[in-house]
């Protein structure tokens, strides 16, 4: 029994490793691109820029109010159907863009909340020193807000890694997809192969989760109560 599972594992491992590398790559692209877009949107929203704040608010609600799977279908089926030439992308581009845009909606809210959490007095003191709005943001508010974004951003990173599994639906050869293909080779061991896949995701996500918890404790101390 164990020998059999061992032989399946060793014969699939190179194949699953390729899938894991794709998962790693997509998740890194999404966290970087999503953070860049999200940081700009969050910054603009925290400054209450007229018109833009409302517009970006719509963007965030649209992305948070619909399942990622549906968004993926929109990026994969609807946008290439518009007839605009640069939107007629392949499935891989559609998947990367969809995940990055999805990520940006979460990052934007984190950035906005972090900027608003920096005490007002900081910004007011900077005003008193004669700093302009951009100087206040760049030298006083953002450096302090950055620390606050670390725990929730780690949470978003885990969420992205888990969302990459959904990309298997449009044929991206990431870990879950490679697992599905492996099942064609070992149809009787469906459960074992999905267990193996789950374990590989666990190895990637769990350290990030532990880091998030550690960062949470560093940034804001958790209260404890005994019930007995």
């Amino acid at each position, binding site marked *: 029994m164990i020998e059999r599972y061992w032989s399946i594992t060793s014969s699939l491992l190179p194949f699953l490793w390729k899938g894991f590398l794709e998962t790693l790559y997509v998740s890194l692209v999404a966290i970087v691109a999503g953070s860049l877009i999200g940081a700009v949107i969050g910054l603009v929203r925290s400054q209450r820029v007229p018109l833009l704040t409302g517009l970006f608010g719509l963007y965030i609600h649209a992305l948070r109010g619909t399942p*990622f799977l549906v968004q993926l279908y929109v990026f994969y089926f609807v946008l290439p159907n518009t007839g605009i030439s640069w939107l007629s992308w392949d499935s891989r581009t559609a998947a990367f863009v969809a995940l990055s845009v999805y990520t940006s909606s979460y990052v934007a809210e984190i950035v906005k909340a972090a900027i608003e959490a920096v005490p007002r007095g900081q910004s007011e003191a900077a005003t008193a020193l004669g700093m302009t709005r951009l100087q206040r943001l760049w030298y006083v508010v953002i450096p302090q807000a950055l620390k606050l974004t670390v725990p929730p951003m780690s949470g978003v990173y885990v969420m992205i890694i888990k969302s990459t599994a959904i990309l298997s639906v449009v044929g991206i050869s990431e870990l879950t997809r490679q697992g599905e293909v492996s099942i064609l080779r070992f149809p009787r061991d469906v459960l074992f192969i999905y267990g193996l896949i789950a374990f590989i995701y666990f190895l990637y996500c769990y350290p990030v989760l532990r880091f998030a918890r550690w960062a949470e404790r560093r940034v804001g101390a958790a209260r404890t109560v005994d019930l007995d």
Partner: protein
Amino acid sequence: MTWLLDYYNYRIVAQYLGRFAEGLSNTLTAAGVSLVLSLLLGTFVALALLSNRMGLRKPVEGYVAFIRATPLLVQIYLVYYGLPALLPFAKSWNDMYFGIAALTLNSAPYMGEIIRAGIESIPRGQIEGAKAVGMNYGQRMRYVVLPQAFANTLPPLIGQTAVLIKDTSLLSIITVFEFTSAGILLNSERVRPNESFLTIALGYLLIYLVILLLSRGVKQWLAGPAWNAQG
């Protein structure tokens, strides 16, 4: 209005209205049943996480870590292929049952974390006061801790419910005919991506808006009475 037909032919959508309604009702059923079950399981998870009994706490911690660190889609596959092997009576289940089982198992740890945080937010003095008047553990929970924790946890629980509803879309992958499946059906029969996927996106958005309004209403309602009394 004829120009609109090129981009979004609402007449086609109208033809599929019955299928969309069927899908929507399955989505709400899956989400509703999973919500109730995951609140029950989540309360158990919360109490286990707060327990001093290692034999109870450690396995539950492992379960929570597994759910949080693996994708829902993989969990759905594990339940879909694993449950019939584990429980013989599950062999005759239809896909909806597997979907609900997977969503419940996925959602309970998140609900549990929220409930645990709610319980921990109760000021110490409340529990000490309850001990001082001679209440036992069950009484303290039932009369002092849980009612107050409920008020603290309701807003985040509503947020988690919104996530749960969105997560039901993944059940389309194990061929449950829910709301997303209705859109996929329209697209596969008519090859009209706009009418298929923009319609379901709009549908989910409307559900989300209802929940958003509900959440705001609840927050206002809870800000009224003396929930936030100092301990």
